[in-house]
């Protein structure tokens, strides 16, 4: 009895729920954008209406200063355009650019916290999956990214202390803020916490190449060539596609293989994460594409040992890998080490400016209902404790209720905190 890698991959949630054709992906993003835009417009309209009604209701019982105070806390510190003009919502492309930015920031966050590669990689896929069904207009990137990173740690079996984790982000960040969107995110991930990465595949391919180079391995039991013949072919592999045959020593070949591994690994940690690669291709496609970009002749040789060119699957597989390679190489990070620094700086500057414009625009079209995730979450949690049927003994329930009330009181009477949170929320 043997399961092939394909059999296993096809049962994964990544394949079943998170693999798309480019068209499906575009349609889903369109749908998400449209729904979020409608919601923002409706919410803003409601707030405007509220603001018109509010003074009349309040004048009888409250003083001018109290009213101003409430004005700050009810989210009107979020600049909502006054007047009747339509809210200018983000387009799908703008949303995608922002999500890409969140993902790049998450990469930095992972480096900053020294998290293992797979944790950061999982976090970024969580973000991409989350924002397939949610718009940055509804949920802002910073809080979501921090929480997604927290969940990614758990999903990869690193169980962090929320308080210590939050403490890394300075005094304004709290465990509560980290935890508040946890359910929101997990629900948007459809409770799929397993992300299949290409890292182990790349490592495995690397080890096989080294063995092939040393004449120790026939890649397939059915191979017609002996390990020595494969080794001999390998030592002649041209450096460039269609280049002249080389005559490498085994040591040179090993170095070449290791260099290719290093470069491919870099692509997997950057471009592969920051594009739609995971949505469109399988982990094997992705690592082979990265390897193809790193050393095409070597990769084609490796493929030929697995899949003879006579096989009807060979052409199809190679076409898929090439199209994935095109996607990976189209990402900014791909050639950032090889273009002149001045050109790179100019490009980065332009990119930064574009993002800043978007961030500014985002401020004008955020869904005012979803800015304070901590309070939304508290409200839901309190319901769970009181109505969710925790039939512990009465004393415990009272204690929880008391804590709930205290928390609530703090929210009401702690204006500095609330203001801080609002500001953070932007």
């Amino acid at each position, binding site marked *: 009895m043997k399961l092939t890698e394909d059999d296993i991959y096809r049962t994964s949630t990544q394949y079943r729920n998170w693999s798309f054709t480019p068209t499906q992906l575009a349609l889903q993003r369109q749908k998400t954008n449209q729904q979020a835009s409608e919601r923002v417009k409706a919410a803003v309209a*409601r707030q405007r209406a509220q603001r018109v009604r509010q003074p009349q209701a309040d004048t009888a019982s409250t003083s001018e200063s109290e009213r101003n105070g409430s004005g700050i806390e009810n989210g009107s510190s979020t600049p909502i355009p006054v007047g009747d003009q339509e809210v200018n919502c983000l387009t799908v492309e703008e949303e995608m650019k922002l999500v890409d930015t969140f993902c790049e920031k998450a990469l930095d966050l992972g480096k900053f916290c020294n998290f293992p590669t797979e944790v950061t990689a999982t976090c970024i896929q969580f973000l991409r999956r989350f924002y397939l069904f949610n718009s940055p207009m509804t949920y802002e990137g910073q809080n979501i990214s921090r929480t997604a990173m927290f969940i990614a740690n758990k999903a990869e079996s690193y169980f962090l202390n929320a308080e210590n984790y939050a403490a890394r982000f300075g005094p304004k960040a709290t465990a509560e803020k980290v935890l508040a969107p946890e*359910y929101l995110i*997990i629900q948007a991930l459809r409770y799929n916490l397993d992300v299949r990465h290409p890292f182990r595949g790349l490592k495995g391919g690397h080890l096989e190449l080294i063995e092939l180079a040393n004449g120790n391995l026939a890649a397939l039991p059915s191979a017609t060539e002996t390990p020595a013949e494969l080794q001999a072919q390998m030592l002649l592999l041209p450096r460039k596609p269609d280049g002249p045959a080389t005559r490498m020593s085994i040591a040179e070949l090993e170095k070449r293989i290791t260099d290719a591994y290093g470069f491919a690994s870099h692509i997997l940690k950057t471009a592969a994460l920051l594009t739609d690669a995971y949505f469109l291709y399988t982990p094997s496609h992705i690592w082979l594409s990265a390897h193809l970009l790193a050393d095409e002749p070597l990769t084609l040789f490796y493929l030929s040992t697995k899949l003879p060119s006579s096989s009807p699957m060979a052409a199809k597989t190679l076409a898929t890998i090439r199209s994935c390679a095109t996607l990976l190489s189209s990402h900014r990070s791909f050639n950032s080490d090889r273009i002149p620094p001045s050109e790179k700086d100019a490009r980065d500057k332009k990119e930064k400016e574009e993002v800043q414009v978007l961030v500014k625009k985002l401020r004008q079209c955020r869904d005012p209902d979803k800015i304070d995730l901590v309070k939304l979450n508290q409200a839901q949690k309190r319901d769970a404790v009181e109505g969710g049927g925790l039939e512990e003994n009465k004393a415990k329930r009272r204690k929880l209720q008391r804590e709930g009330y205290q928390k609530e009181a703090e929210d009401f009477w702690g204006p500095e905190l609330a203001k801080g949170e609002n500001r953070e929320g932007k």
Partner: protein
Amino acid sequence: MAHSPVLSPKPNPPGAGSRITTMNPKAKALAILNHANQPPAPSTATTPGDGGTDLAEQMNDEVRRKFVSGARLGEGTYAVVYSGHYRHDPSRLVAIKKIKLNPEHKDGIAPDAIREIKHLSELSHPNIIQLHAIFSTKEQNISLVLEHLPLGDLEGLWKNQSISYSGADIKSWASMLAQAVWFCHENYVLHRDIKGNNLLIAADGTLKLADFGLARSFADPGRVMTSMVITRFYRPPELLLGCLHYGGTVDVWSMGVVLAELVLREWFLPADTDSQQLLVICDVFGTPTEETWPGVTKLRNAAILGVAKRPQPLSYWRQRFTLLGEDGIDLLRSMLIMDPAKRFSARKVLEHRYWTNAPRPTKKEDLPKQGGGLAKVGEDLKRRAGETDSGRGDKVARKLDFGSMR
């Protein structure tokens, strides 16, 4: 101050709308945070169709609506279990495991829940409990909709003196267990809590591996894993010795202990503490040495191995495990090799001649069954990983105490 209903995402009680206008302006301000509860503002254009919920929420609600939750079957520290069924087909029963929200847990969704959700979502095999769906309620309780497995568990079976079973029956159960474990390992998942009462029995007699609350993916080489897993009686010697790098063979050891218990109809390796557990193992298998298990003396807790003991002779096995026959005894001992590097992998277990030699394993529908019933379903599913109800107070799978040895 009084509990403010406007902060609640639950629908407001009748009259809530009018209460809002009489409320403290700050409370009103907060109420805006959740417009789903708001009486629709007169001038507001409502978004048609979405009811103000996220796409993800809508998908979640769709899943939730597929199931009807029924009687409460049981409650444990970690979860409450309800009986339930598909809404469109009441004859399709399920068990709904509602993971308790613990407001005192400071780090959000608990590890048990994360592990179970992550791994069960990926594993689909006839001998692994099926996860039909996951949904959460508005109150953020995550519910796992699991396969309905009404006929108790393997531990209950060997404890039930009114049931008798044969070597062929044992082979049948053991084979279903071995396939489940093999499948987990093929999918790079370590179960880390295999024991009789995590092996549940379906109405048709199929054995199903359940409770993935301690499971994890295989670690990359070099990465440290905790040795504080697997319920003590079933914990392999390398974990008791404090090994932080291990593989699928930890589950194979547990599988061996389960098989032995099934034959003996009593605990095979009972012990009251972790250090005693190791000595109990050595009583049967002998004290490991550098010759029998290279590297063993360098493990963290090697000091507790103490005086060298000799392993039990073959006659001990033949006497106690007659029911398994020579092939079965050979397999059992291969699953219980002290050195994890020599111990059989799940795949090698399946390749053993025991399965193909006589007697044939009993067909699952002909296996002896016990009553079980709904209450038992609840019992089985609500346990926290690492607990048994052996009455020995060994609910401490994650607390190793070697201090008492000194």
